[in-house]
């Protein structure tokens, strides 16, 4: 790690550390609650979870306000919770209920929450990245200091639209950060299946930044302090008019890829950003077992309430299917 990142890391205060930890726990707890509802058939879809990647969403989004946007992926729950989406309305959306963030029209792959700048999950691999350039363009034209962050995976990093957007962002010097979460650092996989031909013929996705004339770097994605430091520097640079950056974070999907279908290998369970950080915080005397237990309890209660809220909400009326193809006038 270079000096500036190291000093950035050193400057993280107690309160921020606890908040980073809590947010990672929040994502994990939300997803576990969602897993339960999938298992019970109360969430009708199967989809990708974010377990093992929490440090990336949390470390990046800690630098963003609701006036900054993110674009996300198929594996969006971590990004959405980190960006501040209401767990109750997000859970209701997963359940396809009327009280969902999008009235049950979005589901896990298309959640949009403009109140938090979550715009949005996306069902097409790499599909949100060009749109994020548009959010950045709007900030640039308005001169409001806003920044937009594109989350995507290493598979999406090969998509033409992502490559085109790297070029466009560099040419227009957009206030944008590309965050590639590379979940195949050791094993080449597609949907959990080990593939014979690699998706990438490079070790580090971040080397592509040079091809487009922007800075880029690769980082450990299960160390929330490193994510926080790297993202902080890039987001500040974008905010100050310095243009885009490509950040790559190596991550491990420690609970497997698609719930109920695929299991992660045992050795991948070692890279848990939450367990690692808990150890560090305990060692530093920032987190006591009592405070930890209290936090887990509070988060678990919040997510149980989210599930209950979702279950209380009725499904949308059938006529809703025909509403909203075009905006209502006025």
């Amino acid at each position: 790690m270079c000096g500036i990142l190291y000093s950035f890391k050193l400057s993280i205060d107690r309160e921020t550390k606890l908040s980073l930890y809590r947010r990672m726990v929040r994502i994990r707890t939300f997803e576990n609650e969602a897993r339960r509802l999938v298992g019970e058939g109360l969430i009708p879809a199967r989809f990708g979870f974010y377990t093992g990647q929490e440090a990336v969403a949390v470390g990046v989004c800690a630098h963003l306000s609701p006036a900054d946007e993110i674009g996300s992926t198929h594996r969006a729950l971590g990004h959405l919770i980190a960006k501040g989406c209401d767990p109750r309305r997000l859970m209701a959306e997963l359940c396809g209920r009327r009280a969902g963030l999008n009235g049950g029209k979005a589901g896990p792959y298309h959640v949009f929450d403009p109140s938090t700048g979550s715009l949005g999950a996306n069902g097409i691999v790499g599909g949100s990245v060009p749109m994020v350039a548009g959010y950045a363009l709007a900030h640039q034209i308005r001169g409001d200091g806003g920044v937009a962050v594109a989350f995507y995976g290493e598979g999406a990093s090969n998509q033409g639209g992502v490559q085109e957007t790297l070029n466009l962002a560099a040419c227009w010097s957009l206030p944008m950060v590309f965050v590639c979460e590379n979940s195949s650092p050791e094993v080449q996989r597609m949907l959990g299946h080990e593939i014979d031909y690699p998706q990438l013929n490079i070790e580090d996705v971040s080397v592509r930044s040079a091809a487009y004339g922007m800075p880029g770097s690769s980082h450990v994605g299960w160390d929330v302090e490193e994510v926080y430091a790297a993202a902080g520097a890039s987001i500040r640079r974008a905010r100050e008019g310095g243009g885009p950056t490509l950040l790559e974070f190596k991550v491990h999907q420690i609970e497997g890829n698609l719930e109920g279908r695929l299991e992660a290998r045992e050795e991948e369970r070692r890279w848990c950003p939450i367990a690692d950080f808990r150890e560090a915080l305990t060692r530093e005397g920032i987190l006591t077992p009592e405070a930890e237990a209290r936090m887990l309890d509070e988060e678990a209660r919040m997510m149980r309430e989210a599930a209950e809220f979702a279950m209380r909400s009725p499904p949308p009326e059938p006529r809703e299917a025909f509403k909203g193809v075009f905006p209502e006038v006025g």
Partner: protein
Amino acid sequence: MALRTITFAEALNEAQRLEMRRDPEVIVFGENVTSSWRAATRGLKEEFGKERVRDAPITETAFIGAGVGAAILGLRPVVELMLVDFSLVAMDQILNQMAKTHYMSGESVRVPMTLRAIYGAGTSSGATHSESLQALFAHMPGLKVAVPSNPFDAKGLLTSSIRDDAPVIFMEHRLLYDMEGEVPEEAYAVPLGVANLVREGGDVTVVATGLMVGEAARAADDLRGEVGVEVVDPRTIVPLDEEAILSSIRRTGRLVVVDEDYERCGFSAEVAAIAAEKGFSHLEAPVARVATPNVPIPYSPALERHVLPNREKIVRTIRNVMH
């Protein structure tokens, strides 16, 4: 309103210029839009600056996607596709993101974006520089599709499209660019979804859009005294003024649909289906279509002329349905 004669391209230019003056959220970008030889956007950069009017790299997916994103944040991007054929490399951003985001988001965001696309055959440009493709966009729920046929409508429909909160595909036939017509100096809106009755006639209804409206009107002139031809220009195919088409059929009892797009599953098929479903009892003859047959647009003028709909084919088809 002060009328003067200007070209179709100048009318497009004026619509963008007046909307940019009126609303600072309107921005323009695309390939080469600041070039002095591009009549529809000429001079906009000089008036509004290079922040609001910019050339994009030749990456349709990235810059159309950027238009979608900017629109979601409340800007009103007018994005230009140099040719509609090039939309085919960017269909995810157009047919998924631009079209569906408003609906998928439970109406929590809007996409007030206009995608201007130059289209059409007749210049020996070959199969990937000559298409119409309106039906592709009209097929996908969530997109409005405007196809102006004259300078007055070009300005008024583009003004409406820019002001509309829905995404609009705005189709501009390349051979209409130099067409002259009377256009008011001021800004005005031609509403989307309201057809124009181009010619009145009692014997047959001809529905046509874009360049084909002129061909249909000339066919009507050729048949003057022989057949009373009513020409209906829907002006937008989404939303479609079905009532204007059906009420004309009720008067004439016959329908010919003219479309420069491919025939199969195209706009001409859609209008024929509407007539069959909602106007069948008024039809005195089978519906006939004059559309581009299901072949790629060929290069040689001899071949291109052979496949495209035109005035002569329309005249022939009208005579057929009259028998």
